[in-house]
């Protein structure tokens, strides 16, 4: 793992996979940037935790999953949702609280889920996705459906007791479970150095006998290489595996947190090794794509978002009558 933009061998990864990974990074980046604008315009209410800067993790991990594999996400969950196959239009509609949203406007940003594609949902409780993911993996082992489950957690989540409990349970049962810890180095505003003595979190997995890796979370290709191998091992019954992906947010904890506690020089360093930059470089170095060809991918992403926004704005809201009926049987 390193911050340098290393050159990679040509054709070591299928061009379609590389394009898919880059497209996902670009989609998430655009979704978040536009989402923040909508938030500032007052169209999105409540909480909004941007995934800006961390896109390479969701994109790299999910490129190694099969359709129908399960993921459990975090409070910063838009990226995971996009990366695991959700349509942007249903996501924008959800963030706007509309009935055509993935959760009909009942869930919102913090609880967005895409059950059909195996996204068991974002989660407002830090660390709670670990036992849920272990349970999904347990279901797969018992039913024998061949699925692998990835739980995305965070450095903050590793200090919740369920981190150890659930990873340990996955280990004693050899579950098809990958725990991806996105170490963005802050739990809300508390730097990781104040939250734990040893900041190399993958060692916690090793300490309980779980194969564990540390990757550069800003490099979607490295994330893909390591996690896709881990996912395949889990599919063969050699799980669980823990992966710590080191990254850095581009801003504060949520849209209204200016992140004044994040040192400028560190922020600049991580922006210099941003997943967009890395993804573009990989497409050029490894697949021989030109800037024009990569820009065309971005343009498709922008067009898709424009349509999605129109769709979402045209969508109505669940009525009070419908809501009351739902509540009666809840």
């Amino acid at each position: 793992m390193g911050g340098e933009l290393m050159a990679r061998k040509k054709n070591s990864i299928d061009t379609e996979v590389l394009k898919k990974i880059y497209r996902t990074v670009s989609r998430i980046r655009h979704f978040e940037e536009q989402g923040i604008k909508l938030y500032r315009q007052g169209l999105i209410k409540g909480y909004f935790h941007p995934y800006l800067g961390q896109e390479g993790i969701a994109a790299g991990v999910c490129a190694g999953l099969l359709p129908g594999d399960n993921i459990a996400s975090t409070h910063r969950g838009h990226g995971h949702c996009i990366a695991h196959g959700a349509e942007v239009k249903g996501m924008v509609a959800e963030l706007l609280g509309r009935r055509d949203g993935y959760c009909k406007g009942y869930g919102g940003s913090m609880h967005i889920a895409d059950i059909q594609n195996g996204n068991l949902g974002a989660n407002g409780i830090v660390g709670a996705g670990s036992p849920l993911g272990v349970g999904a993996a347990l279901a797969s082992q018992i039913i024998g459906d061949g699925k692998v489950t990835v739980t995305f957690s965070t450095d903050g989540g590793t200090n919740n007791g369920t981190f150890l409990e659930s990873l340990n349970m996955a280990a004693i049962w050899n579950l098809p479970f990958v725990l991806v810890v996105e170490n963005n180095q802050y739990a809300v505003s508390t730097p990781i150095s104040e939250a734990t003595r040893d900041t190399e979190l993958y060692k916690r997995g090793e300490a309980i006998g779980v194969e564990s890796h540390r990757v550069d979370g800003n490099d979607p290709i490295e994330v893909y290489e390591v996690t896709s191998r881990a996912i395949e091992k889990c599919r063969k019954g050699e799980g669980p595996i823990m992966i710590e992906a080191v990254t850095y947010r581009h801003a504060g904890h949520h849209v209204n947190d200016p992140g004044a506690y994040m040192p400028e020089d560190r922020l600049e360093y991580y922006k210099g090794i941003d997943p967009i930059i890395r993804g573009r470089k990989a497409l050029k170095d490894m697949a021989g794509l030109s800037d024009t060809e990569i820009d065309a991918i971005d343009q498709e992403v922008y067009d898709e978002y424009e349509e999605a926004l129109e769709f979402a704005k045209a969508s109505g809201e669940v009525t009070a009558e419908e809501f009351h009926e739902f509540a009666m049987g809840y």
Partner: protein
Amino acid sequence: MSAREIMYRDALREALDHEMSVNPAVFIIGEGIAERGGSYKVTEGLLDKYGPQRVRDTPISEASMIGAGVGAAIAGARPITEILYIDFAMLGMDQIVNQAAKFRLMTGDRGSVPFVMRTQGGAGGAVAAQHSQSLEALFYHIPGLRVVMPSTPYDAKGLLTHSLRQDHPVMFLEHKHLYMTKGMVPENDYEIEFGQAEVMTEGEDVTIVAWSHMLLKAMEAAETLTAENVGVEVINLRTLSPLDTDTIMASVAKTNRVVIAQEAVRRGGVASDIASYIQEEEFYSLDAPIEIVAGLNIPIPFNLSLEKASVPQAQDIVAAAKRTLEHA
């Protein structure tokens, strides 16, 4: 097929056994439930029959045992997590309250959580403060949970079978004093749907509403009162959520007097909530104030005499019923 007399714990086991035999997605995890067969022998023999994949002992990790059950349910299985004592379920409250109960709403009704948490509560046998509490009101308060509290072997089997065939998260709350009680139970499988209280005895003078182990004390009280020519209608609620208010109201409209008996402490309890519904719907039927018989507002002490003093006894229910009869 015929019915025969078996114990509450055997009735529970029959429900588990049958559902495991017909549905390969049903499995059980818990502490000491596999080879040991559980502290109350409910899962005895299931390991041999269904193997270690589907009957698993867990580490002592309540939050993640419950969470794994919830996650497995979301992902399409039919998990049962057994928690030794309801007091220990407090370690898993996030997974119950924030995950299981809210999931259906948060997913816009696209997801469901067919998860059953089996556990037991109640005072009995000097097991002291952290192994004796009655905590159903905590779960009753949470929208989305089904709170099931069987009192008889017949109810135990029918309600557990139904729990494993419906799609909502279920808090299946047993009582440590009930496992060895006996009753007639059909050999075949059957379901008791939620929200269907049973009128155990019919009478004209006073209604007694109870659930879990308190039902047995209510029946004992009814026997005493009947001997004194008081007509008692005992209602066995079976489930607190959903709550069968129709059966309660019909009885109160008939008897005009009601005693609600719970083992749990009075403050913030289910009995108070039932009383609020009665005064709202049958205020003009009442000939006497609603009586609530409940535990003292204190944790359960170790000393047996004090333990007994902290939870209601049959004579407390008798006394409460007689107080209602003092009103014309």
